[in-house]
């Protein structure tokens, strides 16, 4: 029995519909994020306009056109490249993006697969992309790609820890790893007896939020943490030998994952799809819009940092992760635990 539509459709059909939804949403979100932030917001911050012609109204068609252009390009592979690994690498990266979208709730009953260990699952599958990046770096048989891949491996693994530890504070306070449960906790929470805006966990978990944003920035290899893709050194790092639709996969993976992390941040810290005064069926319609708004806010922060800061050197980057972020995250968990028991 399908909870949303109240129809009795079989298990196979449900699975097919869910697969289609996930497969469609990921490129769509990548497109939206790419257009709004990469093309328009970045341009305006750099005192220029960005694409204006394609599609007539402020160039909204630009990325769609780019996507179609990529799809019809010649499939070039370096002569010395490891063919199978080279071809599989983008698929692995995009796969991890798809898998993260499976648990993100967009409404009280709008989630592809509710999992009791939602948080754990989301963070676990998001780290699958490291394998894809390493595969790309090695299989390209290009020294620059190799450097980029190795830097990425070190960086992505180093920043997994602050990412996870930042979220542990939220889990401790909410008492559950289920993303639905965390949203419910924020929706029905109260601030000193006032339930006007619920209890968004960012209010007490601000350290965790900051850590999550920094770690997410690093997980996405965006400046100031874009050593693996350092444009002025490695040109495109581990992606340098990829063209055409394979590069499109990496691009979708990058921006889709950005959306996924922003959605996770919005769900864990800002209350996700929930607003305290809307319940029931109305929330099924309003939920996705509210989530989308919150995601745009978080993504704005991420991309703003991306366009402003220079990049850290690899050793400085590692020092930040190991010497600063992890101790702060551990401190945050301890503090949360103590305060949770005390209050």
């Amino acid at each position, binding site marked *: 029995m399908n909870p949303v539509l109240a129809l009795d459709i079989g298990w196979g059909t449900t699975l097919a519909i869910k697969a289609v939804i996930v497969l469609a949403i990921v490129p769509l979100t990548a497109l939206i994020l790419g257009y709004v932030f990469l093309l328009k917001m*970045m341009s305006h*911050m*750099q*005192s*220029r306009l960005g694409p204006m012609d394609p599609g007539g109204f402020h160039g909204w068609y630009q990325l769609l056109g780019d996507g179609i252009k990529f799809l019809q390009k010649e499939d070039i592979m370096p002569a010395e490249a490891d063919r199978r690994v080279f071809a599989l690498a983008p698929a692995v990266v995009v796969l991890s993006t798809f898998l993260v979208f499976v648990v993100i709730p967009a409404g009280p009953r709008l989630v592809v697969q509710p999992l009791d260990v939602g948080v754990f699952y989301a963070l676990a599958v998001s780290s699958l992309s490291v394998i894809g990046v390493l595969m790309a770096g090695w299989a390209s048989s290009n*020294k*620059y790609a190799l*450097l980029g891949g190795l830097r990425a491996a070190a960086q992505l693994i180093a920043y997994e820890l602050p990412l996870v530890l930042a979220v542990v504070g939220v889990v401790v306070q909410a008492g559950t790893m289920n993303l639905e449960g965390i949203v419910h906790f924020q929706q029905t929470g109260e601030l000193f007896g006032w339930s006007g805006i619920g209890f968004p966990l960012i209010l007490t978990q601000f350290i965790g939020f900051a850590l999550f944003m920094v770690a997410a920035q690093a997980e996405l290899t965006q*400046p*100031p943490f*874009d*050593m693996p893709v*350092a*444009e*002025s*050194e490695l*040109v495109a790092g581990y992606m340098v030998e990829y063209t055409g639709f394979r590069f499109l996969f990496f691009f979708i993976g990058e921006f889709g994952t950005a959306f996924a992390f922003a959605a996770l941040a919005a769900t864990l810290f800002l209350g996700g799809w929930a607003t305290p005064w809307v319940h029931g069926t109305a929330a099924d319609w309003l939920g996705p819009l509210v989530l989308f708004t919150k995601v745009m806010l978080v993504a704005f922060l991420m991309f703003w940092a991306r*366009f*402003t*800061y*220079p*990049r*850290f*050197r*690899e*050793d*400085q980057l*590692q*020092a930040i992760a*190991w010497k600063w972020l992890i101790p702060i995250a551990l401190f945050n968990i301890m503090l949360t635990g103590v305060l949770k028991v005390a209050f």
Partner: protein
Amino acid sequence: MTTTDLPEPGKLPDVDVDPSAFRHLADAQVNVELDTGDMVLNIGPQHPATHGTLRLVVRLDGERVIAADPIIGYMHRGYEKLTEFRTYPQITTLINRIDWLSSFANEVPFISAAESLMSIEAPPRAQYIRTILTELSRIATFLLFLGEMGLQVGAITPAFYGFRDREYVLNLIEAVTGGRFHPNFNRIGGLKDDLPWGFIADCRGTMQKVLASCDEFEDLVAGNPIFQARTRSIGIIPAELGAAYGVSGSNLRASGVDWDLRRDGVPYLVYNDLDWKVWTHPDGDSFARYWVRLQETRESARMVLQMLDMLPAGPIMAKVPRIIKVPEGEVFVNTENPLGEMGYYVISKGATGPFRVKIRSASFSNVSILPWLLRGVYIPDIITILAGLYFILGDIDR
């Protein structure tokens, strides 16, 4: 071997250097003895960080450079040979293209050399306008530098601001000379044309914009903690070694050497009439080079404002014969160009063209210090050092 020990001058480091000698430079020490082979990486000649067709062959241990060898000449146009077959006015067109970002400044020393041999002096108004245009070229070059050093270090946005602000100055140069790049405006004895109507007011407005944008760069880039972390203590050039290698201009001033050819060399143009300051920085690292150029941009804008107030009236061209024949003699004229010291040693035998011209270009010497400077740095630091030295390929290769 530590970075504070100077090697024997002229002796390049052995490529069999023990990589563990540089371990102390890493923030994170690896205690496991990893014995891996070295990797040879080609940076360039097509690379976004090499400012043109410079090729750096580096031998790496992981991310640390053991030895670096710059290979130049991809843009070698044979200028010194060409000058032996050209007349003096034709050579002015050639030398515009040596340092193409500040092309007006390239012409000035050569024209001064020819005028010195002919015992002609350009009238005062021409001298003032030449100085104004040289300083405008300096501002244009440095605005680009302020933006693109941020780009090389990773921040995409300052590059756009640098180009945008540079456009204002290029519009001024175009208004006077007709060309944004390669103005070819100097003539032996003066200038081709006078200033257009309205130039002085426009120039005043643009200089205010330049000063404002310098403040913006100081805030956005130089004040950025990540930028500072990437550039402080990177690529320190000791003052004596820099002078021995011929490193000049802002690079040497950033190492604390208080030497500027506009003030300390053979007097040329009208710098002695102006009230201005030479900026130095004691550190000698990439941040110091950025900071010195930032201050020099401001100083140039202030100098231009002074000159606009002091501009004398009068002719802009001295009496010069129609066919220029420079009498026999030799002269060396060097000037403080934006990239450093540029000099022309002109040997004339009385013909309409020189017998030999030796072009001393700043970037050639600035880049010659790279084999010494790049030992033991990380790959990202190579990019920062290249960006901080600020060379132009046409200036290296001629």
